[in-house]
């Protein structure tokens, strides 16, 4: 695009001379490539469809209101996942409360305030690395810091703090990219009118970047809701008889309940696990839908 004089004439001339005799060959090649790309896409979709079909065919007959309102039971027909469902909602809610302000705050600082130097670059690189750390490592960190050192015990607040740590890098990176995409002219205009850095960030940068930030939040919530490994380490129980009652309550979550049912010997419980997976997917889609709705609303508000 930047150097039409270098490639323009060649691109225009070469195919015409060589191609007139080889047009069929090139067309065949293009068709083959298209076929390969289609197979690649179809394969991915097929696997996903098979997975969903497998789960639905096993679990759909177990879907009922009782599944949502009962506690777990040794009898599959009485078993429900109310404590797990409420536990997941509590955990995700608390995680959001801990992670979103910190994550967005860190992104605003890194993009708007931090001096551009070696340290800032090092910090940014390390945040990207943190996003790739296996989740069980965060579990061990949470066990050491929140459960033991802060003596929060194996409670819902320890789990939520651990999950918040887990999703922070994703939120920070996504928010940073959204903030970076805000045109500098917008900031310059505001600065020119005498706005302080905070006023620029609050009134112009963050609102403009909000749709992008919300995308990051959607991704991070999706990650947190299906996580089991770190919660296994920081002590989500496999079976509880009660709803979460507060920050220091013991708890279980949907993925734990699914794991616990799937490893039972009885086929009924394995089908029940499939039904629980459907509930988890539905919950995930619902939360994503809310986030997408919010993103649409924020994008409409931006007009310059």
């Amino acid at each position, binding site marked *: 695009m930047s150097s039409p004089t270098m490639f323009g004439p060649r691109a225009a001339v070469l195919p015409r001379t060589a191609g007139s005799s080889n047009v069929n060959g090139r067309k065949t090649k293009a068709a083959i490539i298209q076929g390969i790309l289609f197979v690649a896409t179809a394969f991915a979709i097929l696997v996903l469809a098979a997975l969903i079909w497998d789960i639905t065919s096993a679990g759909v007959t177990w879907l009922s209101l009782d599944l949502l309102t009962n506690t*777990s039971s*040794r009898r599959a027909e009485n078993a429900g996942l109310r404590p797990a469902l409420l536990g997941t909602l509590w955990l995700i809610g608390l995680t959001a409360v801990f992670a979103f302000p910190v994550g967005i705050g860190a992104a605003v600082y890194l993009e708007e305030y931090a001096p551009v130097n070696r340290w800032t670059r090092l910090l940014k690189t390390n945040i990207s690395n943190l996003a790739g750390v296996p989740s069980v490592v965060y579990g061990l960190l949470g066990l050491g810091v929140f459960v033991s050192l802060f003596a929060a015990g194996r409670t819902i607040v320890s789990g939520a703090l651990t999950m918040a740590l887990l999703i922070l890098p994703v939120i920070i990176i996504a928010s940073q990219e959204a903030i970076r995409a805000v045109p500098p002219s917008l900031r310059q205009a505001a600065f020119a009118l005498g706005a302080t850095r905070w006023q620029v960030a609050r009134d112009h940068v963050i609102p403009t970047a909000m749709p992008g930030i919300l995308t990051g939040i959607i991704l991070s919530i999706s990650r947190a809701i299906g996580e089991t490994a770190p919660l296994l380490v920081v002590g989500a129980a496999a079976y509880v008889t*009660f709803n979460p009652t507060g920050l220091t309550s*013991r708890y279980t979550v949907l993925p734990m309940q699914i794991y616990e049912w799937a*490893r039972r010997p*009885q086929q009924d419980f*394995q089908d029940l696990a499939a039904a629980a997976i459907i509930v988890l997917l539905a919950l995930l889609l619902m939360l994503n839908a809310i986030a997408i709705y919010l993103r649409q609303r924020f994008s409409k508000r931006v007009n310059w």
Partner: protein
Amino acid sequence: MSKRGVGSIIRGGCVGLAITSAVLLSSSPTLAQETDLSPLSGEIVSDGSSTVGPLTQAVAEEFNALAPNVQSSVDISGTGGGFERFCAGETDVQNASRPIDEEEIALCADNGVDWYEFEVAYDGLTVVTNPESTFLECLSIDQLRTIWQGEGGAQTWADVNPEWPAETINLYGPGTDSGTFDYFVETILGDDEIRQDFTPSEDDNVLVEGVSGDANSLGYFGAAYYQENQDILKAVAIDAGDGNCVVPTPESIQDGTYAPLSRPLFVYVKAASLERPEVAEFMRFYLNEASTLASDVGYVASPAEVYTTDLENFESAVAGTGTPDSAAVAGTPEA
């Protein structure tokens, strides 16, 4: 080490009393509780074996119906992982698919955690193979040792019995964190090393899949997983050394003829927790109902006299006249 656990030996004495109260016990209808449990509140935290977990869950489920304000939770960190927490004083109740070992006894003692041991049910470790196998009907303990030992373990069926085909044996077994693994290794191999080239999984359903999809497979797990998958698995009868091949059934597991792979399942309770009424009532309920609930979750009830001695021991513990089982083993490690 004893297969019946330390507490059972200590309490061996009172069989006469046991039989009379067993009769009394069995005459009272199950799940009927004389005392009103609904005013109880508090929290009961348990962890440990994933084998015993379902039984404790079933008890917690029924107990919760009577005492809705008590918050019970059951974790499944495995017998070993559970004992670490139990001996750190973090949990009230520890589920165990093997007796507490010497290191764990010492750890509990160091942390000042006194405990009681109760046997709550029986499980028969079942050795399984693929239903296509035509020759494999019965294995002796010596043959199992030949197959599973670390040094010079049998590679093909012909190494076990010259009449069998020279096909490679593919082994499946529970992972090293489980009490099932500990029990099997100790029973079959004693102090010898187990071979490393078997397919391990903490999820017994994965083992079921593996064994059923492999014509030359051999694996082992709790009886419940065999009972639920009889159409795709074949149980191998076990010859304890007397020439009799015994198939694991609820009867042969309970009466002890399926030996030595029948194992008792235990629940350990922190002595200090028994001073809390909700834990004491929970354990009383557990010991009264375990025999009924055990079969619901795929296990076999222990003999009636086991529950009777359990209950006697429990009542004296609650009354403050009992000696914790931890005190009885202190300084006298198991022979």
